[in-house]
Each structure stands twice: as structure tokens, then as C-alpha cells.
């Protein structure tokens, strides 16, 4: 990994991501209720819960795609506050993978990967392309480098999206239901890439319904319901001995058949 500096006073000893009593409303609807969550460096966190439980909102608050109204969110000790001027500096460190991939359709795969490193980090074209090819190889898709996103399958596009985030060499990766828009036969190829990332000790926060992934990869599973964090536990405890009635009901529904 190349050395790089960030002008923000990031604190290497602070938790990677910390949410303290975060509240958020859409009009009268409270999407997040007193959400607190601390993610260590290298920790793999899976957030699950029924739809509308606020899990996507929570993860989107971490890179300021949504703004919380109360509470504190800190990235490596730097707090995201209203009117935050250097949000782009935080976002460089926080990679995000979306449910709908959101590749840039007018650019080739290679250009998708090199755009931000070149224009944001100011890396030269050649170096950016070398890095891009390295990550494309890692997600096993290097041979598609010169195609356009629309020529790729959903699973391939999502792997490209992961590689695109990795090219910025982020310190933490956020996954917002990365496999939900995929056909079943393509889910595994994306999960494999994510598992590989986890094995390389990337800090990951992943909103997903893939309970198998949560069981095998996560250090911590967070269950959210109605905007609240209901339960936080290691996967073993979470799946075998959930404390909350709501968690049991959810697991019953999702694993029951």
C-alpha cells in the first residue's frame, strides 16, 4: 500500500468508526433511534434486520450520504458535524459499495477504477492503471478491463464496484446490501470477493441478508429493528442464543425455511 497523508487529524488509536446516540428523522418519521456502534480497526461487522429498520440509513450516515440530526459520528476520531467542510477527505478513507453497483456507465471498467484515484488523489495515469489492474485481478475480472459496465453481468459489475472502491485504498469498506440486486447464481462470486477482503483484515461494515456470510465472516453481528440497535453479539451467540425476542422472531423468519 502506498504511503499517503490525509490533512485531517485522524487518530490511529481511535476506533475506525464510532456512532454515539445517533438520531435521525425524515420529517416525523424517526429512522434512527439512539444508535450507538463502535467498530475497531480490522473488525468485520454485519448489520442485519428487517427492511425499513434503518440499517441502510445508519451505514449511509457514516460517509455522510445522509446527515444525522443528533448524536455523534466519528471516523478515526474525526467527528462529522453539520457544515463539515472536508467531507471528501473522510470519504477518501471510507469506501462504499451500493446495492445497485452505481458504476459510471459512460466509462470503461478501467476508467471507472482510475477516475477517483487520478482526480481525487492526484495519482498519475500509469500508476492508477497499474493499481486498477491489480485490484481487477484480485476480483478476478481483469480480462474485462476495456469493456463498459453494461456489457457485464450483475455479479461482475458488483465486483468491479468493489475494486473501484479498493482503488482509493480506503481504511474501511461499507457494503449496503451488495448482493440484494443480484441473481442468485451471482451472489457467491461477490461474497467470495468479500470473504477474501475480510481475510485480509479490511475493516468492513456490511448490511446484508446473507446470514451464511454473517456466520462465517463477521466478528460482530448487529441486529436493528425500527431504527434501534436491538442486539450486538458475536455471530456464535447471535445465532445460537439471541437475547432479544425481536431477534429470535427475525431469525425465525429468515432462517426458518
Amino acid at each position, binding site marked *: 500500500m502506498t504511503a499517503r497523508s490525509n490533512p485531517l487529524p485522524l487518530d490511529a488509536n481511535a476506533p475506525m468508526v464510532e456512532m454515539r446516540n445517533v438520531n435521525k428523522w425524515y420529517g416525523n418519521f424517526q429512522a434512527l433511534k439512539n444508535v450507538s456502534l463502535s467498530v475497531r480497526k480490522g473488525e468485520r461487522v454485519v448489520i442485519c434486520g428487517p427492511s425499513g429498520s434503518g440499517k441502510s440509513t445508519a451505514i449511509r450516515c457514516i*460517509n455522510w*450520504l445522509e446527515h444525522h440530526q443528533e448524536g455523534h459520528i466519528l471516523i478515526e476520531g474525526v467527528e462529522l458535524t453539520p457544515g463539515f467542510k472536508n467531507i*471528501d*477527505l473522510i*470519504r*477518501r478513507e*471510507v*469506501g*462504499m459499495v*451500493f446495492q*445497485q453497483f*452505481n*458504476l*459510471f*456507465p*459512460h466509462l470503461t471498467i478501467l476508467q471507472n477504477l482510475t*477516475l*477517483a484515484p487520478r*482526480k*481525487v*488523489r492526484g495519482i498519475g495515469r500509469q500508476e492508477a492503471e497499474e493499481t486498477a489492474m491489480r485490484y481487477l485481478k484480485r476480483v478476478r475480472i481483469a480480462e474485462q478491463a476495456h469493456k463498459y459496465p453494461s456489457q457485464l453481468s450483475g455479479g461482475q459489475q458488483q465486483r468491479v*464496484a468493489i475494486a*473501484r*472502491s479498493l482503488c*482509493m485504498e480506503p481504511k474501511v469498506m461499507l457494503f449496503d446490501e451488495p448482493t440484494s440486486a443480484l441473481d442468485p447464481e451471482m451472489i457467491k462470486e461477490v461474497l467470495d470477493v468479500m470473504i477474501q477482503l475480510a481475510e485480509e483484515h479490511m475493516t468492513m461494515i456490511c448490511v446484508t441478508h446473507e446470514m451464511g456470510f454473517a456466520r462465517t465472516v463477521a466478528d460482530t453481528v448487529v441486529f436493528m429493528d425500527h431504527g434501534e440497535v436491538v442486539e450486538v453479539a458475536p455471530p456464535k451467540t447471535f445465532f445460537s442464543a439471541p437475547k432479544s425476542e425481536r431477534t429470535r422472531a427475525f431469525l425465525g423468519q429468515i432462517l426458518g425455511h
Partner: protein
Amino acid sequence: MNISVIDILWFLLAAARWTLLLSAIAFIGGGIGALLLLFLRYARPNIGVRFMNIYVEILQGTPLLLQLFLVFFGLPLLGIDVSPILAAGVALTLYASAFLGEIWRGCVDAIGRGQWEASASLGMKFVAQMRYVILPQALKIAIPPTVGFLVQLVKSTALASIVGFNELIKAGQIVTNATFQPVVVYGLVALIYFCMCFPLTYCARLLERKLSQSR
């Protein structure tokens, strides 16, 4: 007096250059104005949206002829000496800014929120997002309606004749007064307008077809 059709045509063609020049001024000025409106609107949504709405509504809600009068008679009150071409250039630029701004706004809005979010989460700032991600995609959809508007603009320059700008219509009036052949003269004027506009509409149609195939 013996003025041949060829003489008339030459006279009109000379004036048509001014029509083209005025169209070009209005289109380039309007394009720049529209781009400024667009950046303002998306960079500062709180102020930009309201400002753009008011601007667009005023200019779309009043006749171009009136705007032309206001500039032509209004600017001298501010101590600015206006020649007909300046008045027509300013009025048409303001007018084109509003319409192009509105057309392009629709094109930018057509680019999904996901593109903004993806580029933002890669650390790109607003100007970089616009330049590398949003506008290149919006441009593709914007070409047919923009060319369509350009045709409107060319025809709208006819109004500049009223403030005494010597463009195609004005030249037609002058020649008619000299030859007493309004049908021949205005027939030729119409033909020249058509020759300027048809290639544009043809291009627009071609681009539209090409675009719908590539989707």
C-alpha cells in the same frame, strides 16, 4: 429600377450573416449562462433552486419581444449606450440561458442519484462530480433537445429586426420597400431561414435516432 432576383438574394444573404452571428452569440452566451445556472442550482441547492426557478419563470413567462424592448430601452436608462446588436445579443442570451438551463436541468435530473452518491463516496467534490460523471452522461441526452432549441433560437432572431438590427427580416423589409415584390422577397427570406434550420433539425433527428438505438 431594375433589380434582379439574384441581386435580391445577394442582399438577403449578406444580411443572413447577421442572423447567423446573432444566433451564435445568443447560443454561446446562453450556453454559458445556462451552465452557470446549472452549477448554482446543484452546488447550492438552497439558493440555487429558488434563483433558477424565478429566473426561468420570468423569462419563460414573458414574450421575447418584450424582453428585447426592455433591454433596448432599459439599458440606456442605466447609462449604457446600446446598439441594436448589443440589445438583441443581451436579450437573446438571457432568453436562451433560461430555456437551455431548463432543458439541461431536466437532463441532469435524469442522471440517477446513485451516480452522485457513488462519485461522492469516492471523495469527489462537486465540480469533479459534474465534470467527470454527471455532465458527460447528461450531455448525451441533452444533444437532441439542445439542437431543437437552437432552431427556435435562429428563428427568434427575427424579432431583433424590430429594434432596428439589420438581420434577415429587416433586410427583407428594406428590399420589399425598394422592389415592391413582397412575395418574391419574403419567399426568398423563408427559403434562407429554412436552409439554416433544416440541417439542424435533420441533425437533431439523426442524433435522436442514434441515441435511442444505443439504449
